[in-house]
């Protein structure tokens, strides 16, 4: 038997108040081992206070080919940004 251990994606919360951020991947037989290995591979210097692991196979991603269909529609909706509405200089705190 020589099957490879599954691949896991690793996410680390670096400080209280910040979101978990993807840092890389590693191989492990289960979630518990993935967390232990992530501790050694990705947090040797206090880089984190919390670890998430997810099987790479369970991650679904948008495809680069869909980039235009997905993201272009928001390009022309400039009114979603506050700068679209110029305010008179005399109006404060807005």
């Amino acid at each position, binding site marked *: *038997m*020589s*099957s*490879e*251990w599954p*691949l896991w994606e690793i996410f680390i919360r670096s400080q209280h108040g910040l979101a978990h951020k993807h*840092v*890389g*991947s*590693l*191989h492990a*037989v*289960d979630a518990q*081992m993935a967390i232990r290995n992530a501790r*050694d*591979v990705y947090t*040797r*210097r206090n880089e984190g206070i919390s670890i998430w692991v997810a099987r790479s196979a369970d991650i679904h*991603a948008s*495809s*680069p080919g869909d980039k235009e269909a997905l993201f272009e529609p928001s390009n022309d909706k400039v009114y979603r940004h506050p700068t679209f509405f110029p305010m008179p200089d005399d109006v404060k705190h807005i």
Partner: protein
Amino acid sequence: MYAQMVDTGVAKVRDVAEMTQEERAFQDRIDADVKVEPKDWMPDAYRRTLIRQIQQHAHSEIVGMLPEGNWITRAPSLQRKATLMAKVQDEGGHGLYLYCAAETLGVSRDAMVADLHAGKVKYSSIFNYPTLTWADIGTIGWLVDGAAIMNQIPLCRCSFGPYARAMIRVCKEESFHQRQGYDIMLALCRGTPEQKVMAQDALNRWWWPSLMMFGPPDAASVHSAQSARWKIKLLSNDELRQRFVDQTVPQADYLGLKVPDDRLAWSAERGHYDFGEIDWQEFHEVIKGNGPCNRERMQTRIKAWEDGAWVREAALAHAEKHAARERQAA
């Protein structure tokens, strides 16, 4: 460097007229410093070259643990031992960051390990030299990690996202490696006459192999030109080597050690150190497998892999049993 003489598989650098529309769009994005991500379209040659390059780099980190690991049990103090263990563990981590970057290109970890063990993919020539005394550990940190930093800092800007991100992580950790090495050299050079002799002996043996790490002159190499075009090689071997010499010679002077090169001299005209001829014959012999430790290094890696097989299998079987039990309980 850690990836020496990477073959791009191309016979000449393609110019714009020869490129397909896809290739042209790809090159335009690279020219505009847009990072390539794993799922983006990329030319096959780019993918294959990166797999080779990142893989060679990863293997170098892993094989590079062996010469230093050799001294962990004999470090002269508990502090030095803890430091060396941390350093060697970092190198293992560097190998893992890099393997995972290569895996995003569609090559499996097992396939990479198999390629290393079959001798199909190389690792850096430098790790085929023996570590004879404690001073070698100081010299490796100072020179070998110093050379690695020189090479890896530009790679933080390379075009492939996962490789660039791995390099940023690696570079944050390397400066500790270089400093702990220089600190060992400082202690030896401020110590007894015998310690100073030991330090000089280590420098004598490691100086030339360290310069060889950057690889043969590549100004005229088609592979280097193609890699430069793709921004996966950002500076030429000779440029990096010159920077390394310029940076390192004053550090040797400070230690009161003599760099073993009679032709080494500051050139006011060039604003750089001139240095002697490198023995490329030796380099090619080491790359071919005939260095002092090539066989031993490979035997050690293969033995570790084979001896660990039952652990990998048992851990997987155990996890599968647990998962099955949980499914039943649910």
